[in-house]
Each structure stands twice: as structure tokens, then as C-alpha cells.
């Protein structure tokens, strides 16, 4: 049975071109970039070449790129590193973010609250998009940092980053964006966006897992989270993950080169999926704005059924998807994103996310449209609350 992998927001397979670029850096060009000999220089060259390429792709300078272990570390470094540095300088202690951020940002903010910082979690509109005016309203004289994701990982909504950046700039406040989900489909030029800090990772753009970057504009002081050999200008110690760095740069290059074509192709398939579900299954709700949205994302609540059961039935039918239900999370709480849209708990528990990708075909969409109505119907038949 062909597996229809519609969970590309969770992670993507490594692109063959990326893998080919990485392979020499395991057993052949294995040097430590910190060594002075040939093997070391060979590895160092690969890291610096990758840094240059990444910088160019996002409109930055090479020394504004810090390689880290992934999106989560990058978010942690941006928030904790900047907050601590600014506190040492005697600046304010207030941070602004939104209620629909990834846990890598939300839980880091909770940690910072324990450390004495104050955090405002701004609401989003019903369509899953934050109103820049609400961010502006939350600003106080103590605000030091604003962090708003570029595109949401659950519902794919695209946030007005450049508008928020303008507000932040006018008040002299640093602005960070987590662009992990956006890099595959949107413009991530930091000058166009106007951001001061930006998070990217490899595993959402057909690159390897365990690699990401933090872009930090020149002049921004960041306190390290990890101490040691002083790599990455002392901001991120630890021997560089050379193959992953090479793979990340290659993945980002491919993603940005193909993004417009791929966006067009996936928008059509995604719309076909949503329209098909709307026509075949009653009592549903499409979560998040339909236009200001990543081209590969469909997030739908099926009332009366619980998401984990749907995901497992889809899996048995060869379709990989995910759910915002508490039952499939590490906590006992349902999706904070669906709840932030003002929807019921039932809608959160019954939400299913389909995220299309580079390998998704018409056949995959047809399969979902064939299997899903039967799955929902059978689960509603055994549900005491289905209408």
C-alpha cells in the first residue's frame, strides 16, 4: 500500500539532492572545523560556505547566522539569550508574543516568567491571524522583545510580520519570528520582513533533523545557553554538525528556488481536498483563514468525533495525518491553537491537520476523499454526542 504522507508540518523526508550533498561529510570529509590541519580546514570551508549561502538566501550577512540544533533551540536562544542580555544591560523586562505560538516559544516564555520577566500573550482573531494593533496596544515602556511566528504550524495562517516589524522598529523593540513552517513557501528575506531575529530549521524543508539557525541582526547581544569551546562566536558552543549544516543550506536553497511553483501546485491540491471534504462530510469547521494561509495546510474539525481515533483509522488506510486532540499530545490539554480561535473543546478534540508536501499527488488527495467520509461516519455512529 502506498503511504500517503500528509503530515509534512511535523517533518519532511530528506530530499535526495540534500542527502547527496551531505554524504561526503560523514566518513570522508569528517574533520572538526576547529582543527588547523587539512581535514579541519576542509570541514570549516564547508561550514562557512553553507553560512554564506544561507545568509544570501535570507538577505543577511554570514556573521548574522548562528547554527543551532533546530527550531526549538533557536527559539530558546532568541528569547532567553536576548532577554537575559537586555536585563544585564538594565533594559526592561516585558515580552510580547501570541497565544498561537509553537510550544518552543510559549513554554520558553513561561520559563522566562518564572525568571521574573513579564509576558503578554496576545489573542488572535477568529481567523487565526493576529491584529498588529493588538500587539501595539500591548507595548509598554518596559517591552524589550516581541516574538510572533511567521506561519502557524497547526492551521497554517500567515501572520502580518512586516507590519508588526514596523511597529517594533518605531518603538525600538527587538522583533523575533519563528519562520520554520514558512521557509518552504514564503519570502524569508529578513530585510523585506524587517525582523531582527529569525528562526529556521532543517526538518520542515526536506533537510535533516537536528539542525537550524538563528538569524540575529548585527549588534544584537545574545547570552549563550550552551557553554564550551566557543564555536559560533561563542554564542553556541559545541562541535559544528557539519553534514547537517551542509544539508540545511542545500535544503533552504531548493526550498526557496522552488517555492513559487510548489505553492501553486499545492494550493490547487489542498483546495481540492478542502472542497471535497466540505461536499462529502457534514458538520465540520475549517480552522483558520482560507487565503492568508500556507498552500499545503488544511485543518478541519469534525464535530462528534475524537481526533486520535480518526488519525489511527486514517493510518490503517495508508494516510498519515495529525490531530489537535489532547489524546495525541504529551499533555492532557487539547490544541491551544484551535482554542485560541474561540472554538469549543469538542472542535479542538475533533481537529485533523493535513499538510501536503513535495511528494503529494492527486492520488493521495483522492484516497483521503474516498476513505475519510466512511471513517467519520463510522465514528459518529458510535459517538454519544454526534448529531
Amino acid at each position, binding site marked *: 500500500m502506498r503511504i500517503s504522507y500528509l503530515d509534512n508540518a511535523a517533518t519532511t523526508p530528506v530530499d535526495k539532492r540534500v542527502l547527496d550533498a551531505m554524504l561526503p561529510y560523514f566518513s570522508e570529509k569528517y574533520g572538526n572545523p576547529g582543527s588547523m590541519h587539512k581535514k579541519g580546514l576542509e570541514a570549516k570551508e564547508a561550514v562557512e560556505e553553507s553560512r554564506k549561502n544561507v545568509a544570501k538566501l535570507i538577505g543577511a550577512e554570514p556573521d548574522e547566522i548562528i547554527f543551532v540544533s533546530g527550531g526549538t533551540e533557536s527559539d530558546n536562544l532568541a528569547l532567553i539569550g536576548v532577554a537575559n542580555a537586555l536585563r544585564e544591560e538594565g533594559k526592561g523586562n516585558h515580552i510580547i508574543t501570541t497565544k498561537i505560538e509553537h510550544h518552543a516559544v510559549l513554554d520558553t516564555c513561561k520559563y522566562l516568567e518564572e525568571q521574573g520577566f513579564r509576558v503578554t500573550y496576545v489573542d488572535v482573531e477568529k481567523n487565526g491571524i493576529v491584529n498588529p494593533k493588538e500587539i501595539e496596544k500591548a507595548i509598554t515602556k518596559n517591552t524589550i522583545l516581541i516574538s510572533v511566528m511567521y506561519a502557524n504550524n497547526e492551521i497554517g495562517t500567515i501572520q502580518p510580520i512586516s507590519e508588526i516589524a514596523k511597529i517594533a522598529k518605531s518603538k525600538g523593540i527587538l522583533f523575533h519570528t519563528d519562520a520554520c513552517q514558512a521557509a518552504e513557501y514564503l519570502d524569508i528575506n529578513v530585510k523585506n520582513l524587517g525582523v531582527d531575529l529569525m528562526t529556521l530549521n532543517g526538518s520542515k524543508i526536506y533537510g535533516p533533523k537536528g539542525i537550524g539557525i538563528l538569524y540575529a541582526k548585527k549588534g544584537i547581544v545574545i547570552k549563550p545557553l550552551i557553554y564550551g569551546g566557543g564555536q559560533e562566536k561563542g554564542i553556541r558552543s559545541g562541535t559544528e554538525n557539519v553534514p547537517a549544516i551542509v544539508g540545511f543550506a542545500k535544503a533552504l536553497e531548493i526550498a526557496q528556488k522552488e517555492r513559487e511553483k510548489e505553492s501553486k501546485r499545492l494550493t490547487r491540491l489542498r483546495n481540492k481536498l478542502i472542497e471535497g471534504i466540505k461536499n462529502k462530510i457534514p458538520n465540520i469547521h475549517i480552522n483558520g483563514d482560507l487565503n492568508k494561509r500556507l498552500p499545503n495546510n488544511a485543518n478541519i474539525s469534525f464535530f462528534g468525533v475524537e481526533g486520535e481515533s480518526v488519525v489511527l483509522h486514517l493510518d490503517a488506510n495508508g494516510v498519515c495525518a495529525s490531530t489537535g486532540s489532547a489524546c495525541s499530545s504529551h499533555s492532557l490539554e487539547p490544541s491551544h491553537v484551535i482554542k485560541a480561535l474561540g472554538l469549543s473543546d469538542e472542535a479542538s478534540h475533533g481537529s485533523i491537520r493535513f499538510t501536503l508536501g513535495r511528494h503529494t499527488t492527486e492520488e493521495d488527495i483522492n484516497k483521503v476523499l474516498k476513505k475519510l467520509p466512511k471513517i467519520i461516519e463510522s465514528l459518529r455512529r*458510535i459517538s454519544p454526542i454526534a448529531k
Partner: protein
Amino acid sequence: MKKQKWFYSEKVREHFFHPKNIFRSKKEIERFKADGVGMVGNPACGDIMKMWIKVDKKKQTIKECKYQTFGCASAIATTSVLSEMVKGMKLDDAFRITPKDIVEKLGGLPKLKYHCSVLGDRALREAINDYYRKTNQLEKIVTDSPIVDETLKITERDIENAVIEGAKTLEEVQEKTKVGISNKKVIPRVKELIKKFKEKHGIK
């Protein structure tokens, strides 16, 4: 055919994809003419369980046990197993079934999933009490342990059982019982009870 990878145990797979004794339509429910009905849970915690029983009035045993569920795979599977376990069982004995008994029958559940099984036994107790109520055997309604969380009908004894089974913090007790997940105002009382039962059983 090669066996597909699966998150839970084989037994859970069997009961999830082919639940036993489950109601699939309103007609089936009407035709059943239940002697007792019980329902626990709410959408906030993600699981709702409704249970219907037929009772052999002479023998005071459960003839049949049916259910419907809005819940995850483990909620469906645990209730399916329970519905088989109680067939022919004396009402008194059925009343005493614990989540642990059900989970053992299923060959275990992931730690975080343990709380789901709490619904089946609780819904069953509600159904048995409902039967006692309907047949005017009010003296038999067992409220031997005070209810802590009204939404899920979680009693002090449930908290005590969770502590005895190794839960030491509010979070660990919630993993086992879901107490206070939607009904947050009971949390201070739950914390007190956890402390009390830890002391009682010499657990540090």
C-alpha cells in the same frame, strides 16, 4: 502480509478496530430497553462515555453491557474489554472493577493513556446506580466514598487508589484519573487529598 506498526498493544488494536458490544444507532439503543444508563466525561477532557446495562433481576447479574464513546483508541478499547468482562457478573462485583483490572486485561497502556480507562468503570458504576435508582433499591446505591470531581464522578477512593498505585503529584494523579482537568476548582482539595493519602500509606 507484514504486520503494520501500531502505537498500542495488539489487544488494543483488536478492540479499537472491532469494538465489542458497541451501539451503532439510535434504533439499537431503543430496542435494547436498558435497565440502567450511566454517562461520564465531557468534551473539555476529550472523552465521553455512555453505558447501558441489562440486568438479570433474579440473579442480580449483568446480562449485557453496551456503550457509546467519544474518545481515543484506548478509551474505545478499554470499554470494549470491560463490556466483555462484566457479562454474567454479579452487580456487586462489577461495581468493584478498577481501571487497573481493565488495563491488565488489555495487556497494558502507555502511561499517559492510563486515564482513559477510568471512564469505562465509572460509567458502569453510574449505570448500576441508575438501575438501583430505577428499581427503588436506593439503599444499594454506593456512595461510600465522597465525590471530589462531580463532572467525572471521581471519588476520594479513586484518588487514594491512584496514590497507592504510585502517583505522587497532582499531575501524576491527573494522568491516572483526570481529576480536575476540566473542573479546575477542585484542584486545591485534590492536592490536600494526595498529601493525606501519601501520609496514610507512608509514601514519600
